[in-house]
């Protein structure tokens, strides 16, 4: 069931996920499109997330944004307050992160492995940090050890914060501790994106793709063909998986396996490295006497890719 509407206020709106929006020419969403989008969201009881470009948005657009309850997703340095601040690469990290803020850091593997220590100030002040590996589709078996080591070091920082009485969240470590089921991004099922061209897309990545295929509009309503394939019960690998923090990115699925419901090996392996690091963080917190309300025990697995054990299903 649709619950969220992501509204791109500009063609050059920041990417807060795996896809890249770099190099897109600015094209603001026309006010009448935005108005129809907001009306649709209100009539369907949807939570609205506005995604901003780096610069100012037109005044009429800015005014319309305030006509509905919403979340603002902005690139770091964009004018005005943001609910979620997107940082593209380690060089963009603020010297003094805002207390209690939510950040998204888009980074490639090499930078994360090399500069992970720079995340300490963010974890010390922010309420939440979402790490997005922008090249996860190239995650190799050779990256497993480096990613595990990186996550263990970040887990140490988090454990230190817990000991100091703070409880920062790092998506790839903390989410799995508290989830009880798959928590996918929901693109195509619980979430759709309204683009500046006035049409719905499964997510911003599907809009920015060379073969962009719309799935309805605010006037016609959503029309997602083969909508069942975005649901967990129609994903043969994912529905049996318990790496619940995995974004299960349908865009990456489409890129790597040609099917929106089937992840490539790289996404599965990275998610299972995170799951295992979460398990070790849980043990570390327990040993330190820190109890997380609602935390479930995470079982140790002997595989990193559920595909490898499909014969045992």
């Amino acid at each position, binding site marked *: 069931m649709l619950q969220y509407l992501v509204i791109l206020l500009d063609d050059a709106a920041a990417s807060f996920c795996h896809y890249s929006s770099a190099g897109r020419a600015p094209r603001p969403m026309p006010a009448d499109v935005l108005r129809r989008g907001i009306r649709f969201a209100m009539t369907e009881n949807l939570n609205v997330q506005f995604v901003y470009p780096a610069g100012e948005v037109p005044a009429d657009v800015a005014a319309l944004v305030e006509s509905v309850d919403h979340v603002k997703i902005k690139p770091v340095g964009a004018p005005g307050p943001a609910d979620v601040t997107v940082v593209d690469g380690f060089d963009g990290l603020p010297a003094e992160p805002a207390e209690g803020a939510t950040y998204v850091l888009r980074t490639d593997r090499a930078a994360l492995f090399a500069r992970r220590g720079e995340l300490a100030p963010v974890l010390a002040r922010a309420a939440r940090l979402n790490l997005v590996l922008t090249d996860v589709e190239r995650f190799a078996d050779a990256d497993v050890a480096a990613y595990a080591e990186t996550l263990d070091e970040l887990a140490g920082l988090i454990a230190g914060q817990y000991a100091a009485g703070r409880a920062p969240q790092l998506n790839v470590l903390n989410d799995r501790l508290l989830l009880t089921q798959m928590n996918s991004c929901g693109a195509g099922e619980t979430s759709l994106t309204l683009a500046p061209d006035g049409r719905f897309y499964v997510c911003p990545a599907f809009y920015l793709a060379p073969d962009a295929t719309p799935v309805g509009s605010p006037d016609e309503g959503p029309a997602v063909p083969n909508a069942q394939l975005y649901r967990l019960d129609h994903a043969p690998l994912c529905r049996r998986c318990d790496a619940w923090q995995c974004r299960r990115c349908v865009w990456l699925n489409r890129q*790597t*396996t040609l099917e929106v*419901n089937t992840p*490539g090996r790289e996404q599965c392996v990275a998610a299972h490295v995170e799951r295992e690091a979460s398990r070790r963080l849980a043990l570390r917190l327990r040993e330190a006497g820190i109890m997380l309300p609602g935390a479930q025990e995470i079982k140790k697995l002997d595989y990193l890719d559920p595909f490898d054990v*499909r014969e045992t299903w």
Partner: protein
Amino acid sequence: MSIKENDKGWQSGMAKNITFIVTKDCQLACKYCYLVGKNTMERMPWEVARQAIDYILDHEAEMKEESVVWDFIGGEPFLEIDLIDRICDYLKTEMFRRGHHWFNSYRFSFSTNGINYHEEKVQRFIEKNRSHLSIGITIDGTERKHDLNRVYKGSGRGSYQDVVRNIPLWLSQFPDAGTKVTISSADIPYIKESVLHLYSLGIREVNINCVFEDVWQEGDDRLFEQQLMELADAIIDGGLYEDYACSFFSERLGKPLDCVAQNQNWCGAGRMLAVDAEGNFYPCTRFAQYSLREKPALIIGNVRDGIDHNRLRPFLTLDRCTQSPRKCIDCEVAEGCAWCQGENYDAAATPTIFQRSTAICLMHKARVRANNYYWNRLFRKLELEDAREAYEKRKKETKNVTC
């Protein structure tokens, strides 16, 4: 004492199927042919074939099936008999030289229109590889049924006479060979006479199936059911069930299926591998561009860069219920209802293999009704003759080949 072995029914279902699309040319222009992109230009160069073989044999650890079927299709494969002969010689030599486990268990398989079966080069090839060959000649039945669809390109002349002259030679070399018959809307009135005709030619196994494409007209299912019931009567009354088989009639057909215990995929796409003249790999030939009407080719790699295993993941995790609409999941006669993954992909609303085409639905249900009739009649007859037990011991099963 001497020793002899009987190897019919060789390794069915346990073998890796690897297909060389050696040519996209054919003498015929069959009206039901799914190969919409046939042409005279795309012939597999030897270098591509050699690279494909080297890649496949280099990756023995990824292809652990005990046996292999090296399949050659076209177009008409025997138009490229020189290339095929060279490929087979290289395969035999390389499997042996490398100590590959498939040297102990391989077949060369062909589906041919039979027109040049008698030619010297083809016969020399058969003689040379006799113990490793599986050759099927496609003949659709009586002359009028066969010539309804299987006509020469250009002239439109029927090909029956040119095929049937080669049947005795073929059966003398492969006495247990079966033929594959494809049924489209216009063929329905000729089903009974065609199957009986094939039996009369000495072909004991007729593998027959309806096309998966959406070609059916209103009322076709009733006509189809009528034809099958008449065929059932003829087989039973003539006692043909003792020595002949027709895949339309099966004891494993027409029951509901469970989404947990009976959830396996029907089609072997993805477990098979096909390579074309360009050196591209496909999960099955049906995903090559010349087989597709609406969708782009689904390429899973090539002979230079190898197989992209991510692109095989959907095929290898696909199950029956995930791709089926509710009506198929709830169907009371689901057992035995087939599908073609390639046709599903081609007919789907989006580029996916997870949307099952149901164009065959009414035809399957008609088949189930006729099948029920066949077995009820046959078993009653056998029981009245006190011959049921003896029949069960010696009954002939078909392989239920559908593509």
